């Protein structure tokens, strides 16, 4: 992986394996390559590399007896620090607090809604899930079936034809019945679909959510910045959930989305099952991205 490559490069540097401002470029080039191969966005890589350079030059890595180890530590620490503080918590403001899930088609929103509900139930909360996707065939049924599996109540859509109507009524029912968390699953949509992004804004108005979470596929490539920024600019995100991390994707989209929106990654999806949700660990993700 990157560690071995860097050790090899630094060992071969003129000046007998010491880093200087003159030869740091070849080492940075290798880090840049690793990040691009890990799907980190091109522009994000540029910015990150300049940060690393600054840190490396500033930290007297150049005077170190083990520059390779020092340098790798600088890179990994900077990556983990950028990815975020550990365990960014969920906020529960509102009566009842609402968590709204949004994102591109197929990213894992419906499954993640059930995973979050199960997690919260396990922590002693009383969640209510709301299937507000009327576009995709059998989407409502999908969330209903998942909710049955985890024994969490699901709003009965009962022939309603409008997500606005569903959200309004679900919130009313949740208040009356005393659920303490409402999780709203929305239809997948493109950030460039103005009409659907307007619909999402409208749903947010009704729900006044405590959390607006972007559910994004961790194998997303360069487009991760456009997607994250698109959703953030339209509805304002409070966090990101990255799914399908049980794959062998390096997950550079994590860095892209974090840097381009400044929003925290709160959870990761690690399986198709309803217990497949874990808290996000920046240091582990850093190691995975670097490869």
């Amino acid at each position, binding site marked *: 992986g990157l560690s071995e490559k860097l050790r090899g490069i630094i060992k071969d540097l003129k000046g007998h394996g010491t880093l200087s401002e003159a030869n740091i470029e070849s080492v940075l080039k290798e880090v840049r*390559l690793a990040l*691009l*191969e*890990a*799907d980190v*966005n*091109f522009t994000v890589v540029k910015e990150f590399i300049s940060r690393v350079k600054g840190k490396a030059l500033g930290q007297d890595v150049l005077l170190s007896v083990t520059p390779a180890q020092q340098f790798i530590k600088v890179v990994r620490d900077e990556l983990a620090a950028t990815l975020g503080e550990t365990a960014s918590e969920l906020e529960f403001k509102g009566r009842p607090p609402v968590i709204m899930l949004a994102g*591109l*088609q*197929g*990213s*894992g929103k419906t499954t993640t809604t059930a995973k979050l509900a199960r997690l919260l139930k396990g922590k002693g909360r009383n969640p209510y899930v709301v299937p507000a996707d009327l*576009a*995709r*065939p*059998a*989407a409502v*049924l*999908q969330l*209903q*079936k*998942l909710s049955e*599996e985890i024994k969490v109540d699901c709003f009965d859509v009962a022939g309603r034809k409008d997500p606005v109507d569903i959200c309004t009524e679900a919130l009313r029912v949740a208040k009356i019945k005393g659920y303490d968390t409402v999780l709203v699953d929305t239809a997948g949509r*493109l*950030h*460039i679909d103005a009409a659907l992004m307007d619909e999402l804004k409208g749903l947010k108005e009704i729900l006044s959510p405590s959390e607006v979470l972007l559910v994004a*596929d961790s*194998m*997303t*490539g*360069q*487009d991760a910045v*456009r*997607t994250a920024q*698109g959703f953030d600019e339209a509805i304002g995100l409070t966090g990101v959930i990255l799914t*399908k991390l*049980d*794959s*062998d*994707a*390096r997950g*550079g*989209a994590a860095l892209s989305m974090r840097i381009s929106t400044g929003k925290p990654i709160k959870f990761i999806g690690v399986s*198709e099952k309803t217990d497949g949700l874990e808290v996000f660990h920046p240091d582990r993700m850093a190691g995975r991205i670097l490869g």
Partner: protein
Amino acid sequence: SVLGMGTRKESLERLEEALITADVGVKTSSEIVGALKEGFKWDKEGLSERLRASISGLLKEVESPLVIPPGVVPFVIMVLGVNGVGKTTTIGKLASRFSSMGKSVILGAGDTFRAAAIEQLEIWGERAGCPVIKHSHGGDPGAVAFDAVKSAVAKKTDVVILDTAGRLHTKVNLMEELKKIKKVVNREIPSAPHENLLVVDASTGQNALNQAKLFNEYVGVTGIVITKLDGTAKGGIIVPIARELKIPIRFIGVGEGVDDLKEFNAGEFADALI
């Protein structure tokens, strides 16, 4: 064009950047741009046009539409890919396309795992006006495939399209299951499945190459569909896939509606890429 002012070296770097940001990948981008440097008169406009032509030429080699040979009845298509890429939706689009061509179609609800997967396919079957063979949730996908193919043979149906559950290429047990489904079909009809269609999401990064390689290793991929090209992602990952695996790219998905499926066109794709 992506080229403005600057030296030749800068121009080449900018072209490389354009390819990398389209998900073509670092190695492939530098190789393609590197090949451009060879013997031509330095001219910025020519450089960009030569890149387009180079990519179009590369992709032309895998521009091969799905043709159902007359006399192959039923023609069996197995649809595969990782989770959420658009397999079921693509099957719905294909079913309607074949039906409007006057072909009879049967769908096999081979995703017996995911919640409401069978019901989702049934709705697409209704839209296309074709029957859906299904078992109960949790059943054996091989048995569904067997039933769908057997039914098609008996009725002399033109096309069978088998839906399968999304699965990560890294999950050995799931990949073995896919191999087993293929075997079941193959035992029933020695030349089937006639098409193993891999569905790839256009917004996927370099992992799509791993997906293509592994699905190809396990069951052999004979065609690719790249979906969600109506988004902002360029789908450049199909360039290294085309270069390394030479698998035909059959269709592109450009939306969630039943008609949002187009035949792959190398020139158009190359134009949109940069």
